[in-house]
């Protein structure tokens, strides 16, 4: 058995290049969606990779490197930004209702309608970016990156039940944003 505390520089680089670096694009996209700045996203990704490298002995080769990296980056974001920014008091929507009680799914939108099929990528991206950060993150992790509830729970540091209710709520808000857009687009056409 390899003593993982004594990995050679060569071993570490091999793991890094083979298993960690391939997730750089996904990690950068995630970072950008948290900070909305290319320079800050780069700093955050670099910080995450350096930290991952430093703790590479605790990484099990072949295990889920992507989830591990996302978790490191999310923690770095919280440490670097949240405590420094004087954000208005965060409202934890989930606290307001029975945790086991998922609210009703918003009436669905028919995405095949003309107004939606004509929506551009940046318009949909903007709708996503208008969501509060926790909801935005939930959608990115689940719908864009395909993480499981367990992985999202770990990355976001919340219980699995909260992942489900947060996702539900996030998607409802997203649909609301899209519906608003559709209303406005319809209004413009009428003029």
């Amino acid at each position, binding site marked *: 058995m390899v003593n993982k505390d004594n990995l050679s*520089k060569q071993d570490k*680089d091999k793991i*890094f*290049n083979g298993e960690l*670096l391939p997730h*750089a*694009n996904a990690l*950068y*996209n995630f970072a*950008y*969606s948290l900070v909305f700045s*290319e320079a800050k*996203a*780069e700093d955050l*990704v*670099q910080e995450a*990779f*350096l930290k991952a*490298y430093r703790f590479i002995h605790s990484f099990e080769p072949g295990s889920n490197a992507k989830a591990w990296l996302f978790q490191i980056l999310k923690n770095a974001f919280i440490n670097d930004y949240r405590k420094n920014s004087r954000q208005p008091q965060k409202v934890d929507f989930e606290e307001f209702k029975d945790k086991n009680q*998922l609210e*009703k*799914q918003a009436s*669905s*939108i*028919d*995405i*095949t309608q003309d107004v*939606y099929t004509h*929506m*551009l*990528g*940046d318009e*949909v*991206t903007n709708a*996503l970016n208008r969501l509060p950060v926790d909801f935005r993150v939930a*959608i990115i992790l*689940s*719908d*864009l990156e*395909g993480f*499981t*509830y367990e992985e999202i729970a770990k990355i976001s540091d919340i219980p699995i039940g909260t992942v*489900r209710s947060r*996702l*539900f709520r996030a*998607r409802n808000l*997203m*649909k609301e944003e899209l519906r608003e857009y559709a209303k406005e687009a319809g209004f413009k056409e009428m003029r």
Partner: protein
Amino acid sequence: MKKSHDCKEVVEQFNMLLDGSLNPKQEQDVMCELQRCMHCLQEYNLEEKYRNFVKEKVEKKCPTESFIGKLKDCIKGL
């Protein structure tokens, strides 16, 4: 005995199905329920379309080549 159809429960279930968090048996059960209720089936189809729509349309930001190069050099130099 088959239990009665609860639309709210089925909606929860098919969301979990679309999230890939049901086992094959559970998936099969949900698919059966969807066949029993036009409303749920419609909602399911719309939800599936919505998920694909978001996945397809949201733009992903990519890092620059030079940033990736810098990152590699930085690790190499450790």
